């Protein structure tokens, strides 16, 4: 799933799209997704998809590395399309283009925006408990990811992981996961202590200056305008 790689990209990149605020990029993603859900016109959809791919390229998102994130939605889209529509190619293509467009919009969002900034914006619509949980899940994910990586290294050096031997893998992975689970629950207990000690109140006000508009916000907003324009006109 490459959560860690994407996270890295979001924090290390500094394209014009990275510099725009999370809110403006979220609005753009929302506009594209609404278009995908609502419209059935092929031309604007193809145009939007090409536009997104261009934006991804300009934002420095390596499409070769993250291409699978677009490939899977397309694949699943086609499974659904084929199983229900059958052989006629236009609707099938349309479904695939739709899935690709939506996936590209999301990839553009998360590969250029730190997850915490997105979570901070979500505070506008979600209850505080959910947003707090998103923040702590995010942090826990990286703590546990380190541990999982270490566990896998340990397995590898003891000859416990090979691409070919499924049974061996499963047995060893289950062991590693068991350990990771115990460690996760203990991490949770320790985090609980830390939260208590630091006076946790529901609604962690994390997220720094996510709402501060920058001049780079013009980018996403202009993009919204463009997409809406050709959907309406074409």
């Amino acid at each position, binding site marked *: 799933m490459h959560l860690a790689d994407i*996270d890295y990209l979001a*924090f290390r990149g500094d394209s014009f799209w990275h510099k725009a605020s999370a809110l403006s990029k979220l609005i753009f993603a929302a506009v594209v997704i609404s278009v995908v859900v609502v419209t059935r016109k092929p031309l604007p959809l193809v145009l939007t998809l090409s536009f997104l791919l261009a934006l991804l390229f300009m934002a420095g998102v390596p499409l070769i590395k993250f291409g699978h994130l677009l490939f899977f939605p397309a694949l699943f889209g086609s499974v659904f399309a084929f199983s229900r529509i059958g052989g006629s190619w236009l609707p099938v293509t349309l479904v695939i283009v739709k899935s690709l467009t939506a996936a590209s919009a999301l990839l553009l969002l998360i590969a250029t925006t*730190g*997850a*915490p900034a997105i*979570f901070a914006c979500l505070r506008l619509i979600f209850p505080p408990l959910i947003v707090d949980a998103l*923040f*702590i899940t*995010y*942090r826990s994910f*990286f*703590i546990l990811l*380190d541990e999982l990586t270490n566990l896998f290294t340990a397995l590898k050096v003891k000859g416990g992981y090979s691409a070919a031997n499924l049974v061996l893998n499963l047995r060893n992975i289950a062991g590693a996961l068991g350990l990771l689970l115990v460690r996760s629950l203990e*991490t949770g207990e*320790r*985090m609980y*202590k*830390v*939260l*208590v*000690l*630091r*006076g*946790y*109140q529901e609604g*962690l*006000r*994390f*997220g*720094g200056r996510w709402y501060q508009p920058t001049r780079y916000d013009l980018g996403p907003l202009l993009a919204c305008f463009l997409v809406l324009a050709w959907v309406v006109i074409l």
Partner: protein
Amino acid sequence: MTKVVKVKCLRHVYPDKTEVKLCGLDFVVRAKEKVLILGPNGSGKTTLLNHIIGLLKPVEGEVRVLGVDPVKEFNFLRRRVGIVLQNVEEQIIGPTVWDDVALAPRNFGLNPREVQEMVETVLKEINIWHLKDKIPHYLSGGEKKKVALAGAMVMRPELLILDEPFDGLDPRSKKEILELLRKFNREFGTTIIMANHDVNLVPLIADKVYVISEGSIRLYGTPREIFSRLDVLRQAGLEPPLLVELFYELAQKGVAVDIPLTLEEARRQLLPLLCPGSP
């Protein structure tokens, strides 16, 4: 001086029925002291600290922190006691350094301007202002320790408690953290309690030392007093510093030397004995 912490013959039973007892000497910390709790792993150091913090409730015995019972007055103490736990990774919860350090003041309901000011001050004091927008999982071990320290110091606590603060740090980071602790103690009069198993730290930071082993407080004193009781240290499974040991042996052979705490002290004593000609 006022007693900041007082612990008297503690007994604790964990849910899994393990019993930890800490009797022997009373554990007393006075204002503005830097106190080191020395003991091997598993001797009960963390249990003692958890009682002082108020995370554990003793089955028997008395714990007083800043004059109150830390379990009952937990909320009162939270603003006055800063804590750096052993596993620093799991106490950095915020998505960025700035957010994490701001956690406590925000939770205690301070207004954004105050929060901004407090965080800025503490980050600059600890020299990690440049890290303020960094993501915790891209920091080095030493940097994480400093962030955790900033999170503990941001409320300007009267008492700072650290569990194994130097574990896994290389000499340079260790030195930096030591320097910061000394600075807080000197400039703000912060009382400091540290748990550790490295005897070499004693001369570098401690005003007073408690030696704990097997659930008993065995020894209490200044570093010099502690180092004159090598037998107790060894019994507790702690290795005295080589310099101390060398001078201890010299003294036993009849050479007129005191136990030195620093290299400087050692040299000052030895040089005149060796070459009377030099200054």
